Each structure stands twice: as structure tokens, then as C-alpha cells.
């Protein structure tokens, strides 16, 4: 599979010269299978430039949402293929205890927040996430709830011998005095175990985290510890704090990786980065 990051920023888009290298667009990751299956993880502002590149060339697109915070759905209405009659778009996401995917999505994709109604999109198919594994093209997909306010999931996407784990918004250290606990008591572990590539929330520095406990995000050090616990081979830090410029992200990442084992590689996520698994 081929993975491209289109948006790596957390919370709110933060364009500018000082964020140009790691990028200012919010969460969006493109995953292409060898059979042409196209998945898009989250619909932050990064999905807009992806849509521009795709145009009407893709005939079927699967968008997998982790949750409905604005930075993960704000780009959806600006994803050009949604409006093209030749493109079939399947949108997958979690319902909550009381609302299904359609009801949750309509809170954003309807006036007065957005001028277009869901019903006006020509070939949009909604899927409430099923329990357990399901297949999309060549991909075996698993979703599971993870520690983040609201009803939020992470994804594990496998094809052949490769596994991508995507936990864009995740605070596994919440309520844990000495993180991490054992694997079976750690949120997200089953999704990330032995992943070839783990894309994981790394919004804060440790100093910042103590002032944001319960906000649903991780310190970079937590992401690294989580990756080690899960025995992931490559960690890509993600959901960068909008207040962190490129230099800050580089400095914090380097500091968190001082005593890294040789079995784990860490890369600070950057818009445009491509990974082949």
C-alpha cells in the first residue's frame, strides 16, 4: 500500500511560512492499494488538495472518519469528487449511542453551517462502522474506540504483510500515573500491535500535556512509548499542535527520541510525505 499525508495538523489549520514544511492542513491521509482501492482517512482541510488532484479520475473513494470534531470533517464539503456524478463516494464513520452516522454528519453538512445538504450530493453512500473487521477492496479494516472525547475510533488497515495503524486523536496516557500500563490495559494497543506504520497523535510537549490532560491528545513522548509498547516498526507523529512551528516540531521530536531502540523509527509527519509498505 502507498500512504500519503495530506494534512498533519491538529485542532485548526495553521498555514504560514513557519509551518510550511510539516504543513498547516488538518488531518487527512490517502491510502492506495495495489488493486487501486482508494481510502481517505479523515476529511480535515487536507482533503481539499487531495480532491483537486483526484478530480474525477477515481471512480470509487472510501472516506473513513475517526470522529466528528471539526478539524476532521471541515474539508469534506470542499472535496471536489463528492460533487462529480461519475464518482461514487463511500463515507464510513462511527455512530454514537443515540445518533447514527447520517445524523451526526448532518449537524455539520447542513445550513446554517454549510450551504449544501447531504441529500444533494449525487453519489454519496453512508456506512455506520460495523463491529469487527470488514473488507474494502484489498484492505482488511478494523476500527475500535479509542481514548478521545466523544465517540472516536482508530483504524487498523492491513493488506498482504503490511499494516497501517491510524490513531490521529488519542490520549492513552489519560489517568495512568506511569504510562504505559500493560498492553491489555492500554487504549489502542490492539489496533497498533506490530504495525508496519503507526500514524499517531503527538500534539504536545510533556510540559504542555500537564495543562491539557483530558483533552484527548498525547505528548510526543507518550506516542513514542505507545509505539514501543505496541512494537510498531515506524511511528509517524501526527496532529501537530497549531502553535508549533516547523523548528519546534523538529526539536521536540528529537528530544523525545534520545534513547530510541533500534527497532523503532520515528518520523515527524509532514504534508506530502509518502510511505510505501
Amino acid at each position, binding site marked *: 500500500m502507498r500512504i500519503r499525508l495530506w494534512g498533519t495538523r491538529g485542532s485548526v489549520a495553521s498555514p504560514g511560512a513557519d509551518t510550511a514544511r510539516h504543513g498547516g492542513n488538518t488531518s487527512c491521509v490517502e491510502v492506495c492499494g495495489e488493486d487501486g482501492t482508494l481510502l481517505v482517512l479523515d476529511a480535515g482541510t487536507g482533503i481539499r488538495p487531495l480532491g483537486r488532484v483526484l478530480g474525477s479520475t477515481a471512480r470509487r473513494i472510501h472516506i473513513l472518519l475517526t470522529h466528528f470534531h471539526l478539524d476532521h470533517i471541515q474539508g469534506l464539503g470542499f472535496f471536489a469528487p463528492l460533487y462529480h456524478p461519475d464518482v461514487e463516494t463511500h463515507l464510513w464513520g462511527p455512530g454514537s449511542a443515540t445518533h447514527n452516522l447520517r445524523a451526526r454528519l448532518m449537524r455539520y453538512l447542513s445550513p446554517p453551517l454549510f450551504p449544501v445538504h447531504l441529500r444533494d450530493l449525487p453519489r454519496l453512500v453512508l456506512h455506520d462502522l460495523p463491529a469487527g473487521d470488514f473488507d474494502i477492496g484489498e484492505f482488511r479494516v478494523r476500527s475500535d474506540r479509542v481514548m478521545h472525547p466523544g465517540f472516536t475510533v482508530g483504524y487498523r488497515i492491513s493488506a498482504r504483510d503490511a499494516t497501517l495503524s491510524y490513531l490521529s486523536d488519542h490520549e492513552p496516557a489519560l489517568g495512568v500515573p506511569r504510562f504505559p500500563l500493560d498492553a*491489555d490495559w492500554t487504549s489502542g494497543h490492539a489496533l497498533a500491535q506490530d504495525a508496519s506504520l503507526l500514524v499517531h497523535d503527538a500534539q504536545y510537549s510533556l510540559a504542555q500535556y500537564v495543562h491539557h490532560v483530558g483533552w484527548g491528545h498525547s505528548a510526543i513522548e507518550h506516542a513514542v512509548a505507545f509505539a514501543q509498547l505496541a512494537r510498531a516498526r515506524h511511528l509517524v507523529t501526527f496532529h501537530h499542535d497549531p502553535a508549533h512551528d516547523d523548528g519546534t516540531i523538529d526539536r521536540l521530536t528529537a528530544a523525545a527520541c534520545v534513547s530510541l531502540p533500534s527497532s523503532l523509527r520515528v518520523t515527524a509527519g509532514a504534508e506530502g510525505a509518502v510511505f510505501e509498505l
Partner: protein
Amino acid sequence: MPQRPIEVILTRQLASTLAMPVFLVDPEGTLLFYNEPAEAALGMRFEETGEMPAAEWATLWSPFAQDGSPLGAERLPLMIAVAERRPAHGDFWIRGLDGARRHIEATAFPLMRVDNEILGAVVIFWEAAS
């Protein structure tokens, strides 16, 4: 060992921060966790007991009724909450592992996932003013 459901993980983490005794079991009634205030009431640290099947923990603390007759696990509020998927409340006596006899009041409730699958149950208990 497979990862616990997120709801169960959250419950344990919540229990870890509370001042009242909390006891957590899975759908079979297997003890998964109890917090520090529960350790004081039960007379043993969780690290010493670890996870334990219902048949074992229900006899370990020897619960009994006011007349002294032993209480089976199925009559404890926690097991009622698991078996019948409803809240349950009751009072009974236990003999802690420190040998002390304690009058306990307990309120239990099931942990149900959004698809109505049962994930376990939680009991909050305290020494009754008797």
C-alpha cells in the same frame, strides 16, 4: 492477552482516581480490578490477588447474610448486575483477608456498550454504619 474494551479501560482509570472503593468484573464475573480504597476495605492489595474467577473471589472474602448464612456469588449485587443487566443494591457482611468482619453496602451497575453488549459490571461499596 487481548486488549480490554475502551469502556472497561476508562472505568478502571476512573476507579483509580476515586476515593470510594470500586470493584470491576468482566461479563463472566471475573475480577479485573479493584482500587486502593477497596484494598483497604478488603484487606488485600490488588497486586496480591490479581485477576480472579468469580467462584474464587466470592469465597475469598466469605460474604454472608445478617443471620450468618453464607451468600453465594449469584446473590451479590455485582453478580446480579452482570447476570441480569440491571443495577442492584444490597448489604451483607464480609470477612476481609486481614481477618476483620465488615458490614458492607454495595451498589452495582452493568457496563453496556452502545450495541447493548455487556462488557462487565462495576460495584461501589462502603462500610455500612451499623
